[in-house]
């Protein structure tokens, strides 16, 4: 380590005096001397030690720092900012319900609120300490004293600033020596060189230029645009694939979508049986089902009917389904009341025609070919026939054994 020189190195005489530093031997001596300097009425001075000397604040008359209040303010702002952020983002600007919870409820927001309180308070404590202590301060008169370097090892010092209104070199030196100083050094520092004006202008220009990118970004973001906004990461914007109806140089016909080979039939699309698939025979509409009508088929038909038909036509087939009821309630101008299957017009239709209506639709009703398999459409036809019969059957139509069980 570098030992201090026995005599203070005197700088060039033309440099003005910036202050005095006096070394003391112990924390106690420092405290006593600090009280003397305070009582003399000096204001620009300080005591220095390698570790905090307890009670020195009182000896010097240092007021308690306002830092705790700044930190309290930062903590409150951090907490409020966190609550506001979470409310605004999750409950207001982009409301989305998670697990059926309310859009805004405090418990889920406590962790982030707490963390932001601590983060803002911690940053304020750290930076507030630096600002209030006027750090960083890389150049200071006391650093001119070789002896003063021991202050961070084992030296106890008092420094008097020459700008103090009471400062007088001889009197100050006498005071420090009478207060028990082991040594007193004068610190001389030339007035700090001023920066050339060019530097200031250059910094100003640079500062203005530096604001350009964010301003341009904000401007670009605020104007309406037809094309998608530029992403930082364009992951999904460029997808190496052909879209529908796009052209491709790979094929002679320049179509990216390839037509199937001549004569291709998709699975389930082979409709050779006119009767089964279209409900037509050579004599017009088929008058019966292409399969055996069984109880299972009626049951299947009931199930399909309740799923696909009942919402409009009603469970009884009279045309009063819930969709229709609601549309009439709302007086929808375009609503066409579904037909009743019990009307004569429908009762007289052939089975094939009913099948055709389910397949292709009629009037406002869409076709159900895409939703219901042909066999199921036939089962629905059978069930409709059952419904119709239920309203127009004579007692004699019921089989004997069942009729006997009826009340």
């Amino acid at each position, binding site marked *: *380590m*570098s030992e201090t020189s026995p005599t203070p190195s005197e700088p060039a005489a033309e440099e003005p005096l910036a202050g005095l530093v006096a070394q003391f031997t*112990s924390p106690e001596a420092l405290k006593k001397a*600090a009280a003397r300097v305070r009582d003399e009425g000096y204001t620009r001075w*300080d005591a*220095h*030690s*390698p*570790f*905090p*000397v307890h009670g*020195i*604040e009182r000896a010097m008359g*240092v007021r308690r*720092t306002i*830092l*705790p209040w700044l*930190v309290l303010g930062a903590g409150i702002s951090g907490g409020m900012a966190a609550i506001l*952020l*979470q409310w605004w*983002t*999750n409950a207001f*600007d*982009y409301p989305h319900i*998670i*697990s059926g919870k309310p859009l805004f409820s405090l418990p*889920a*927001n406590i*962790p*982030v609120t*707490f*963390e*932001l309180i*601590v*983060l803002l*308070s*911690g*940053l304020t*404590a*750290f930076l507030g*300490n630096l600002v*209030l*202590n006027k*750090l*960083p*301060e*890389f*150049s200071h008169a006391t*650093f001119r004293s070789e002896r003063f*370097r*021991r*202050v*961070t*090892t*084992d030296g106890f010092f008092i420094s008097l600033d020459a700008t103090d209104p009471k400062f007088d070199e001889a009197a100050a030196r006498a005071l420090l020596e009478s207060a028990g100083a082991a040594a007193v050094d004068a610190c001389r520092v030339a007035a700090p060189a001023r920066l050339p004006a060019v530097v200031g202008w250059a910094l100003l220009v640079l500062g203005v230029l530096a604001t350009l990118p964010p301003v341009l970004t904000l401007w670009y973001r605020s104007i309406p645009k037809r094309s998608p*906004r*530029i*992403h930082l*990461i364009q*992951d999904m914007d460029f997808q190496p694939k052909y879209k529908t109806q796009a052209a491709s140089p790979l094929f002679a016909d320049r179509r990216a979508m390839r037509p199937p080979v001549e004569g291709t039939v998709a699975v389930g699309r082979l409709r050779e049986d006119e009767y089964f698939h279209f409900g037509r025979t050579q004599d017009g509409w088929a008058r019966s089902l292409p399969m055996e009508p069984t109880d299972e088929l009626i049951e299947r038909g009931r199930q399909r009917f309740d799923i696909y038909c009942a919402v409009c036509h009603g469970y009884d087939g009279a045309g009063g389904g819930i969709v229709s009821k609601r549309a009439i309630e709302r007086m929808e101008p375009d609503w066409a009341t579904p037909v009743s299957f019990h009307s004569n017009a429908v009762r007289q239709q052939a089975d094939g025609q009913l099948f055709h209506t389910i397949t292709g639709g009629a009037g406002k009703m869409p076709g159900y070919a895409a939703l219901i398999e042909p066999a199921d459409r036939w089962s629905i036809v059978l069930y409709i026939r059952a419904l119709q019969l239920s309203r127009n059957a004579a007692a004699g139509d019921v089989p004997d054994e069942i009729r006997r069980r009826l009340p």
Partner: protein
Amino acid sequence: MSSTLAENVDNTTDDPRRRAALVIGRRDYASITDRVCGVAEMPRTPPAWYVLFAFSSLLTAALFASVGYLFVTGVGVWGNNSPVFWGWPIVNFVFWVGIGHAGTLISAILFLFRQRWRTSINRFAEAMTVFAVMCAGLFPAIHIGRVWLVYWLAPYPNQMAVWPNFRSPLLWDVFAVSTYGTVSVLFWYHGMIPDLATLRDRAGGKLRRFFYGLFALGWRGSARQWHRYEVTYLLLAALATPLVLSVHSVVSFDFAVSQLPGWHTTIFPPYFVAGAIFSGFAMVVTLMVPARAVLGLKELVTVRHLDNINKVLLATSWMVAYAYSVEWFMAWYGGSPYERFAFLNRALGPYAWAYAIMVTCNVLVPQLFWFKRCRTTPWIMFVVAVLVNVGMWFERFVIIVGSLSRDFLPSSWGYFRPTPIDVLMLVGSFGMFFTFFLLFLRFLPVVAMAEVKTVVAHDAQNHDS
């Protein structure tokens, strides 16, 4: 201050008539500075340092090479696969965050409790915290799949017009770990400013003077500065104390808030915090025992310090043991068959070997610390501490992998197998940790000199009166 030679070198016995000395050997201010700064001012770096540094940087390079491989290839380079989607990366994350708890605990909580013995070890433990949090932060960041979109975690106005979901514990984690990292660095650096000024004032070379001067910020040790410095320290300690308890609680929410049996338990926050302190203190012992011997700090970091740390280890070992057993009770008392299965499976299922390692290392081995001989013999405590570190890694493995591999749907059950990349990343993260730690030992004040001096001054006053 007269230089007193400690008459009683064994400071582990308690004599109720007077306080045991916290620091032994020559106890004047200059010799404390000489001793601590001597470490950073060694004229020639010892060859052993170069060997260790080369080795740890090699591992760090391996870590980043495997991270690069992950980036270009995708998360398939890990063993993560259905149903274990959180494999070693999250185990490593929780492990390192846990290690990072001891530093702030020693700095903040022991400070508030006026435990003056902390002054010799707090700098060291805080450095450990900062480096451990750096290792921890790496893993969730690379675990998100499309790493280049990591900034989506931040709530910033974007062209997609969406915001992150603040109900998600994973987002809480982002805030908790980044706040913890920031405040730990601030706390560490704030405490170091006066000591950096000491190094600046002793620096011989221009380069050293410039850099130490830069980071010392022109500290002059003035009473007005010290006053604000101490208030700041107290404030940071008061802020860091709930923070240190909150961080691992929030990490535990990642699990506890989900519905997986084995994760969905309310005991997790205190259980995780106790485990974090346990593993952090174990890491302090692991690092401190060799460092104090090699760096010649045995008089500042005395056997009494190690004894105290080991007592904390014993106490926290019992806390995790309590958590392990209460989990069993809750599984039985809760009456959920899935919960019961999860815990039976934990101890007797395919990962029974990991559970056995966990219980042996975390509960059985630390019981050695009932014996004073074990608490005060460096090599024994070193072995115990290393085993505790192993056990705590396996605790996270058991919780994460063990629970995930047996979820609700037996058809998706699976057994997790790590890939070489998994192993390389774990080993590499140790490399990164030790690389930073070696740099810290070589260039920064390893003991808080100014704080030790206050302890010495305090001792001297007590002695005089």
